[in-house]
């Protein structure tokens, strides 16, 4: 057969690798900042755009989509070309992908800090950026599929199975979760509300973990681990089983983020059992990764790349065991809303994604620059710093999580909460927050050492922009042959492979989300639940803008320890007008769902809220909440009220016909009443300030249910 000559594009790999390092450093530095803010509120700098609620999403987005995202594309562009024996199908698509992705990151950072957020975790970006992401993602995937189709190898390797699954699933998740109706150039409301929004969001959120942080990295592992160890993959059969099981089962697991919350019981149970069934498929990847080292463990001692890989895969194994455990009701009752979850995700982020990225970069850069790594010693130092950092980071947070849960749930002999004041718990875990700063900083410094090492390596080498290779052209082959294994057949039919993957990942989402629209009893309606007043709606948008949901939940779970602390537990029907839902996932501060209930335990007057927003430490010396003093300076954007009302009407919120035209009259009347009440308490603030709207919203929270009765129409 005649050999064809072709070229690998290394420049695109290099660009993505540089972007990975750059955004990694930025993301980790922002992570250190938010960790410091939780101990020293002064580091919020009393500025809107440097305050925790806006900075924390920058950290999570930077690490997930900028650091890990660019890491995925680095390894993907390198391995895809070589595994398929061809250059990329389209050069302009590769580079549009690169620059498009970097612009998305920059736009994300700017808009998030400016307070433009959808209020949905890990999907905070607003609608114009959502569209840009979809376009760039399709360009990336199109280029990939096109490259696969013009390959010179007969079969596609397991790494590429994972790339294909990643492409199709992330596209489905991103588009599905981002369906929203704009009311301004940079703001929108999601079409989903309350329970449905929660289910869609965590279908997305959980599978962002699965298909952005896991499957593409498994693909990278399947390429770089055997390459670095120069050993064969342990079991092809295991690859097949764990691949299909993983992508099919993962999609169902989303509701485990909503256990003991106001979603239907059956959805919760599906979340639990599918999470548990994920242990073995996840461990399939771990086994194939670690057992690939059989016969070559001695190499791990010498080769820092392998050390990073071994810790990465071990961390993967640990967090994919811990995840299902956290999905068991009894454990979730303890762990949810606490720092345990934060510890858990950082085992994944720092260990699995971080270390796999580091190992890959150390392996890749000397090859791209045709040289040796500048210093193996420094790489080893980085390895040990990083490993210790993971321990220093996670152990205090696990400890904190346990402490929080036991203090929140402790009753005395008289049946009363022992620690009814939330701040007692906050103060107790302060030392753990301090240790976490230490762990995070150590990890960050290790990454700095890596950057230094890579810069030195790059300077010593000379970049190989294109690499030539040769292979025979792929012969046309038809349908399945006799004796050919079905999966082997599928491996040479990438389009069919992709379609099957789409089918596998659609089933779980459809089964869990669609019935909540079709079956009324899933969300029993409550007659007394009414839409927000215009002022409350504006206040709610400020709540979202400032990222309050990063620290406060709006979801009281049916435990005595929660109802004694916060009041009546949450009902599904209470959230039907919440576009988006704001249940939250972490209680750095207390739950706020019954904050407005005047007979409740948490009720505080408008004047308290005003003073508290201006200076939380004045009201509670040990509070770690940032100041929000600008809320008394900035005015409510009342010009947006009509558009907001109209979008809400489109989404089915029952404001009367033509209400958009008179909504601001109601808004002003309510605002003036609140301002007058504050004035009587000696607080002078104009009724058009944002703080007034936020107070109105806070005082509305959870109040509808007190006079209502729950009725399911089908009952």
């Amino acid at each position, binding site marked *: 057969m005649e050999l064809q000559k072709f070229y690998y594009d290394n420049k695109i790999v290099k660009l993505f690798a540089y972007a990975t390092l750059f955004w990694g450093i930025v993301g980790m530095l922002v992570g250190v900042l938010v960790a410091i803010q939780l101990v020293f509120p002064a580091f919020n700098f009393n500025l809107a755009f440097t305050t925790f609620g806006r900075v924390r999403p920058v950290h999570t987005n930077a690490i997930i989509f900028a650091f890990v995202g660019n890491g995925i594309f680095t390894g993907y562009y390198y391995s895809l070309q*070589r*595994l398929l024996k061809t250059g990329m199908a389209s050069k302009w698509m590769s580079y549009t992908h690169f620059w498009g992705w970097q612009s998305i990151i920059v736009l994300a950072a700017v808009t998030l800090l400016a307070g433009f957020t959808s209020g949905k975790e890990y999907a905070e970006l607003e609608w114009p950026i959502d569209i840009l992401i979809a376009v760039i993602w399709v360009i990336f995937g199109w280029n990939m599929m096109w490259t696969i189709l013009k390959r010179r190898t007969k*079969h596609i*390797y397991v790494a590429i199975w994972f790339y294909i699954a990643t492409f199709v699933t992330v596209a489905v998740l991103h588009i599905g979760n981002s369906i929203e109706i704009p009311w301004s150039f940079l703001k929108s409301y999601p079409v989903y509300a309350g329970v449905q929004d929660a289910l869609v969001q965590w279908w997305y959120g959980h599978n962002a973990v699965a298909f952005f942080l896991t499957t593409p990295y498994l693909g990278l592992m*399947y*390429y770089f681990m*055997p*390459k670095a160890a120069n*050993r*064969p*993959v*342990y*079991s*092809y*059969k*295991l*690859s097949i089983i764990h691949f299909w099981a993983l992508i099919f089962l993962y999609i169902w697991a989303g509701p485990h983020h909503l256990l*003991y919350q106001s979603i239907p*019981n*059956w959805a919760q*149970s*599906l979340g*639990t*059992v599918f999470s*548990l*069934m994920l*242990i*073995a*498929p996840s461990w*399939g990847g771990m*086994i194939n990764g670690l057992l690939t080292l*059989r*016969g*070559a463990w001695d190499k791990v001692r010498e080769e820092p790349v392998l050390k990073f890989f071994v810790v990465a895969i071990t961390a993967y194994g640990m967090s994919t065991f811990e995840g299902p455990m956290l999905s068991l009701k009894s454990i979730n009752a303890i762990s949810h809303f606490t720092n345990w979850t934060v510890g858990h995700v950082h085992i994944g982020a720092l260990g699995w994604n971080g270390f796999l990225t580091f190992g890959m970069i150390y392996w890749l850069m000397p090859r791209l620059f045709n040289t040796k790594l500048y210093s193996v010693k420094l790489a080893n130092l980085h390895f040990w710093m990083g490993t210790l950092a993971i321990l220093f980071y996670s152990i205090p947070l696990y400890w904190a999580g346990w402490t929080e849960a036991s203090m929140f749930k402790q*009753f005395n*002999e*008289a*049946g009363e909460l022992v620690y*009814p*004041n939330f701040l*007692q718990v906050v103060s107790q875990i302060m030392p753990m927050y301090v240790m976490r700063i230490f762990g995070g900083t150590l990890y960050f410094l290790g990454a700095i050492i890596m950057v230094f090492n890579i810069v030195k390596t790059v300077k010593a080498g000379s970049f190989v922009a294109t690499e030539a290779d040769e292979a025979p052209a792929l012969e046309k082959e038809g349908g399945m042959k*006799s*004796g*050919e294994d079905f999966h082997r057949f599928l491996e040479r039919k990438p389009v069919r492979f992709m379609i099957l993957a789409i089918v596998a990942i659609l089933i779980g989402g459809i089964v869990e989300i669609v019935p909540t629209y079709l079956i009324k009893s899933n969300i029993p309606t409550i007659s007394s639940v009414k839409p927000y007043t215009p002022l409350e709606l504006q206040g709610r948008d400020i709540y979202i803008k400032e990222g309050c949901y990063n620290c406060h939940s709006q979801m009281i779970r*049916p*435990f*005595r320890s929660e*109802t004694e602390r916060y009041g009546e*537990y949450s009902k599904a029907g209470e959230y039907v007008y919440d576009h988006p839902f704001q249940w939250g996932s972490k209680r750095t501060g207390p739950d706020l769902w019954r904050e407005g209930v*005047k*007979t*409740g*335990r948490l*009720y*505080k*007057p408008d004047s*308290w809220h005003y*003073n508290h927003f201006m200076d939380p430490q004045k*009201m*509670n010396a040990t509070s770690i909440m940032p100041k929000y003093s600008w809320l008394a300076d900035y005015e409510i954007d009342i010009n947006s009220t009509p558009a907001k009302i109209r979008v809400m009407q489109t989404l089915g919120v029952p404001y009367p016909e033509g209400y958009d035209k008179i909504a601001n009259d109601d808004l002003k009347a309510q605002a003036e009443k609140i301002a007058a009440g504050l004035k009587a308490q000696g607080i002078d603030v104009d009724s058009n300030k944002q703080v007034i709207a936020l107070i109105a919203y806070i005082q509305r929270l959870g109040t509808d249910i007190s006079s209502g009765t729950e009725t399911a129409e089908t009952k």
Partner: protein
Amino acid sequence: MSNTDENKLPHGEPEIDELTNDRYLGGHEYDGIRELDNKLPAWWLYLFYFTIIFGLVYLVGYHLAGWWPLQDDEYKNEVAAAAVIKQAVPVVTIDLENLVPLTAEADLASGKETYDKICVTCHGKFGEGLVGPNFTDMFWIHGDSTNNKVSIKNLYDVVITGVIEKGMISYKDQLSPIQIQQVLSFILTFQGTNPANQKAPQGKKYDTFG
């Protein structure tokens, strides 16, 4: 060429990896990466089966057979169990007609505990006042102005009924009568102190307390 044939060397023998004695899969080579023909590890497979069975039992037990309570019932059970505990706690009755400040150390300590949990949010750590009035002087908002005196019973009524328009909620469901008496007794120890950041006096000045 069928898949089984791919596994064979030209002379018919499967190729064996020297380090592990495992069989290579023929034809499985991608950019130099080869794959071994190992079976699924048995423990792994059993683990997978176990989780699937667990899942089935879980779904049947919770949703078909009703072996275990779902969350609303679980909550009801928890509250019922707590009610039993609460009933077992002896109720300390207090003489509301002749309510007097307590002076015993244990009472004041218990009062301080309640104060630090609840009152501190609005009245300040040292009774200096924040959103709520201070406790350091003889100016009282809820005294008995017709008889020109203020008593612990007046304050007791405030705690029981609340002053909702000012933001003081009713604590009758959160605190037992004796706890209220204790915390009020503690609050009276702020009288005459001079903590920092004291709020300006509010209400009417009374001459006598009692």
